[in-house]
């Protein structure tokens, strides 16, 4: 972290955590500083994150590279408010969020965070359409919600991932690629400011994986979401706007030695 400040190809000066130092640029949508996280394993302690810092910007797709077990999922869990860091700070839209309670964190997730998991994690009892509708329903406060508008946006986003003919299919009736496209639609239906994708193509074959990644990148850009995409595949990382690396629980802007 004491490295000299690196420079991007187009001449923008980056700071220590890989963010442009150009003050004309906006504030990061999601900003993490010095996150530490350890797990109790047996009688000992496994330190997974040792001061990880990340900035995510709207409209920018950032790849998080690291070998298996390096802590990518752990970091994404912290950034997605699914788990709390031991120490460190986290800002979402300039609001400090690392100490929020369960309910408040859930409400923020419903309103502004989208997740895509390696395992798709669709609800098996529900159709593609109902799965995509779910985040909108969960975000609705009170009994009176705009049902019509919710349904319209769910149908619309399923069209954008090319599944307009699969609305009423159950996940078990869909291929892996289709399931992940439903998951991407579900992550984007609430128009989240931040999209966190944990090895989204890890469970797909090469060709389907490439198509799914194309879709994810295209929609992420269209929505100008701040996207963080965890992967151990350099080909995937190469297609993102920017790549950060994780090793020994610390974030690097370049391939660490």
């Amino acid at each position: 972290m004491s490295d000299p400040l690196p420079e991007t190809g187009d001449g923008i000066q980056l700071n220590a955590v890989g963010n442009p130092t150009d003050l004309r640029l906006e504030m990061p949508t999601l900003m993490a500083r010095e996150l530490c996280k350890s797990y109790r394993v047996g009688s000992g302690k496994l330190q997974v994150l040792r001061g990880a810092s990340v900035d995510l910007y709207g409209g920018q797709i950032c790849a998080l590279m690291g070998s298996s077990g390096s802590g990518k999922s752990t970091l994404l869990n912290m950034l997605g408010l699914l788990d709390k860091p031991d120490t460190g700070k986290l800002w979402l839209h300039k609001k400090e969020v690392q100490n929020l309670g369960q309910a408040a964190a859930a409400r923020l997730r419903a309103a502004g965070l989208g997740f895509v998991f390696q395992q798709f994690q669709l609800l098996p009892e529900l159709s593609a359409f109902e799965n995509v509708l779910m985040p909108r329903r969960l975000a609705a406060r009170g009994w009176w919600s705009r049902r019509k508008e919710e349904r319209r946006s769910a149908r619309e986003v399923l069209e954008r991932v090319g599944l307009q003919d699969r609305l009423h299919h159950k996940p078990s009736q869909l291929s892996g690629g289709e399931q992940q496209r439903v998951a991407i639609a579900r992550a984007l239906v609430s128009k989240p400011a931040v999209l966190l994708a944990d090895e989204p193509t890890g469970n797909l074959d090469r060709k389907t994986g490439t198509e799914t990644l194309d879709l994810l990148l295209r929609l992420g850009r269209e929505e100008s979401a701040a996207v963080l995409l965890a992967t151990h595949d350099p080909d995937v990382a190469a297609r993102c706007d920017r790549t950060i690396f994780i090793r020994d629980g610390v974030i690097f802007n370049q391939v660490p030695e």
Partner: protein
Amino acid sequence: MSLLGLGIQYFRTRLLLLMSAVAIALGVAVLFTVLAVMNGFLAELETAIRDLSGDAVIETARTQNFEQHTLQDFEGWLADVDGIETLEPQLTWYGLVGRRGGRSVNDPRSADLSGLMLVGTDEDIAPDVAAELGPDDPLPMKMGVGAAKELGLQVGDEIGVITFVGRRRGRGAPLQRTFKLVGTFSTGRYDQDLNRAVVRRHDLSQLLRHATGFSQVIVRTQADADPLLVAVAIENRLQVVGTAAPGYRTTYDWRNRGGNLLRAVENQRGMLSIVFFFIVLVAAYQLVATLTLTVSEKRRDIGVLRALGATPKRIVRFFVTLGLLISVLGIVMGLALGHWLINNLPTVERWIGGGQPIFRAEIYKFDHIPVAVDTQSVLLLVGMTLLAALIFSLIPAWRASRVTVIKSLRKR
């Protein structure tokens, strides 16, 4: 209720949830039926007791009083008391009753003589016997089943009755008369069946040479009147005209007379309700098991819902709603089944009893099982079941809300 759809999907795909509903349904049906039958018994007992004793009775400690005043006197005194439907004269007296011809041949254990209360009624207890009979013709008599059994009597037997009337000094000679048993009756009250015989009031009055032909007045109140208030009003009225009607001081609410029995049945109903509510409780407890299983089976789904922004409260609400959904289904099915049961009791009785009726007319007064659905107790039953379901659902629901996203999504 955005998750209701998901709950219904769970319901459709999980037989176990349906089984819980069926268990609750059975409990509710049994309790519904038991309550309906108990209420039916109570209602019939009430009617039986009211038929016999009226809603209030005007009595006196000095029997002579009734020989000084006619029924018209009472009608006059009580003309302005509200709520009286009818005043019925009744003549009761005591007599020693025995089988004509001494000890019963049929049953050596039967008693020779028994002291019975003779109730003179205006009801036509023997339609085919002439109203006026000669001095040597036997008079018709109906006897409580218990009394008839004790004396070893059968319908058609002749009965000797001895009684005394100590009305005036020197006129205490015993009176004797022959009666004939024309039938037996059962009031549903063991004690009354054991010590009562019903005869025609006119016959009894003649036998006793009673001046007015009644020894008490049975008061029947109007349907919307409170018998207790009417009784009090009558008592007050008789006090006011006290000089004209010396000693008429007692009026009884019918509830007092049949009270012990009614209270016993009411108690029994309460006890049975508690016992059978345990069936509902066990069924509702099964809901805990079912929901707990669903929660652990659906941990991953719960984690996904939490990741998508469901608050822990929302998860609690989801599983409580699921539990209530199950119990509402169970209650609806249970009430429907119970309704069918009480409408087909003879069939059910034959099933359970293996072709034999369980309720014997000789033991229970009623030749059919009486049922009466009481809205209040049904509402209480539904409310208690829902409350039990709510409380029991809270336990698994709370456990579901504690599921953390990262743990539930890690293991698959």
